[in-house]
């Protein structure tokens, strides 16, 4: 039998998958530059760690929980594709090998967990974070992604448009970030002590890598190399440029200067905003989504000072707010000329789509927030959520990882090699 395989689609999806993977170190750098120099390694490790843990869970049963046969509209059968062994055989009728889809979707799961880390840098125990990330992926991400994207999922069947993850990724992660920021509490000294970003060059490199990878994230979500993926690609580009301008204009009018951090933040806000909407709006619609995302997120990041929660790197202000905005704007700006083929309020489609979008968005927001809050409270009670105040003040990199990020002097910090393995220094001193 002749194979139905579409090599163009397959090549694009494997490429797009690698591009989404690159978003994870990109996110690590974006976040890492924003923390102080004593916590940058921990920040990198938190984001990369979510990739390791969720990647393993995805292979074991995460894919099956997300895309297995529907159970009650909320989750897939976790045993159906357990270990993925049954998906290796060549299916002559498939245009795209299922493993390409499995790998692509797996990156989304890892990235979504990584996003949460930005709310809680400088102060979270590394093992506590990995345990949280794993449990949250199982209890929240896999079921939510199933509900939003899988056939039989209740949000999917309702007709909610979430092309690449405004609801499943950004609202979902943003709500969990808010819960964790509340559970773990403020950084010592926040907001009085200055906590300036230690390296804005890293932040901009990270934003650039995110933007590059996001073309894989959004255009890859077409699951084919076709017209829809090209339209989505262009919309992703348009919205991001407009969002950076929107953020910078807010800064110029409010603070007097257009900042590098503002440009990098505007890029990410625009990408978040267009993620759900990129298949549903026109290029002009994408510009509108983008500029609104830039302006509203630039204003939203100040909420934490008013309400007193230390969402340190603004996961709520950028991802939750940006995700909600893009998801709801579909209800206004969707046009049936775009690949999704639905008209929103401004194109004569009535308020029906807007209503569906709101139900999907706020259901996921509430579910993710409550479950993250409960997981966080349990881990906190178990004493594995927050490092000691002394360790936090002297720097989490040293306390949690026994490393420091930068050694800029020729003296190398001075000192000498003691021996192999932990405890060598202590044994050496005892002998003396």
């Amino acid at each position, binding site marked *: 039998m002749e194979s139905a395989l579409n090599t163009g689609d397959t090549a694009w999806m494997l490429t797009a998958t690698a591009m989404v993977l690159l978003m994870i170190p990109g996110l690590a750098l974006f976040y890492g530059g924003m923390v102080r120099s004593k916590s940058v390694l921990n920040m990198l490790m938190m984001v990369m760690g979510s990739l390791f843990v969720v990647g393993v869970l995805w292979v074991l049963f995460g894919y099956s929980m997300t895309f297995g046969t529907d159970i009650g509209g909320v989750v897939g059968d976790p045993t159906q594709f357990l270990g993925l062994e049954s998906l290796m055989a060549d299916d002559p009728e498939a245009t795209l090998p299922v493993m390409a889809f499995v790998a692509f979707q797996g990156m989304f799961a890892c990235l979504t967990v990584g996003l949460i880390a930005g709310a809680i840098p400088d102060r979270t125990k590394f093992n506590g974070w990995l345990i949280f990330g794993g449990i949250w992926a199982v209890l929240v991400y896999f079921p939510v992604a199933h509900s939003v994207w899988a056939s039989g999922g209740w949000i999917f069947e309702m007709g909610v448009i979430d092309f690449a993850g405004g609801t499943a990724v950004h609202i979902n992660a943003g709500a969990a970030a808010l819960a964790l920021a509340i559970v773990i509490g403020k950084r010592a000294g926040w907001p009085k002590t*200055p906590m*300036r970003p230690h390296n804005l060059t890293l932040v901009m490199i990270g934003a650039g890598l995110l933007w590059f990878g996001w073309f894989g994230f959004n255009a890859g979500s077409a699951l084919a190399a076709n017209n829809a993926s090209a339209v989505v690609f262009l919309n992703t580009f348009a919205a991001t440029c407009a969002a950076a301008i929107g953020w910078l204009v807010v*800064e110029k009018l409010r603070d007097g200067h257009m*900042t590098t951090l503002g440009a990098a*933040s505007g890029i990410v806000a625009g990408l978040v905003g267009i993620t759900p909407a990129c298949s549903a709006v026109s290029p002009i619609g994408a510009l509108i989504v983008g500029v609104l995302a830039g302006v509203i997120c*630039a204003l939203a*990041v100040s909420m934490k000072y008013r309400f007193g929660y230390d969402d340190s790197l603004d996961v709520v202000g950028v991802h939750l707010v940006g995700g909600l905005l893009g998801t709801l704007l579909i209800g206004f700006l969707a046009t049936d000329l775009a690949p999704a083929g639905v008209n929103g309020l401004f194109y004569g489609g009535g308020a029906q789509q807007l209503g569906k979008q709101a139900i999907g968005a706020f259901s996921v927001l509430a579910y993710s927030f409550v479950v993250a809050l409960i997981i966080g409270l349990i881990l906190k009670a178990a004493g594995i959520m927050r490092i000691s105040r002394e360790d936090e003040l002297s720097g989490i990199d040293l306390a949690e990882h026994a490393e420091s990020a930068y050694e800029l002097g020729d003296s190398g910090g001075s000192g000498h090699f003691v021996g192999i393995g932990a405890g060598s220094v202590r044994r050496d001193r005892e002998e003396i």
Partner: protein
Amino acid sequence: MKLVTAIIKPFKLEDVKSALEAIGVRGMTVSESSGFGRQGGHTEVYRGAEYTVDLVPKVRLEILIDSERLDEVLDAITKAAHTGKIGDGKVWVTAVEEVIRVRTGERGVDAL
């Protein structure tokens, strides 16, 4: 012998160095430093949050000289580092008991 310590604006380093070289000063130690005086700090804005940064970047020069040349050296530094605006810095002089050149073991003025 005297130790002249000067705190100056970083962009004035080249001017001061040239002025000292022009009068035959053959060595100095330069370090980047920060501090505050009457100039005070500046403000920075990150995602709309405004911070005051109290410590201003400065350059610290240390020069060991023969006491006889003191006035000449002080004159060169203050002229070259001068802009007339707040934050130009300070120069002070400390008496030095002994100087040794590590390579040769020379002491005192010979080691300068």
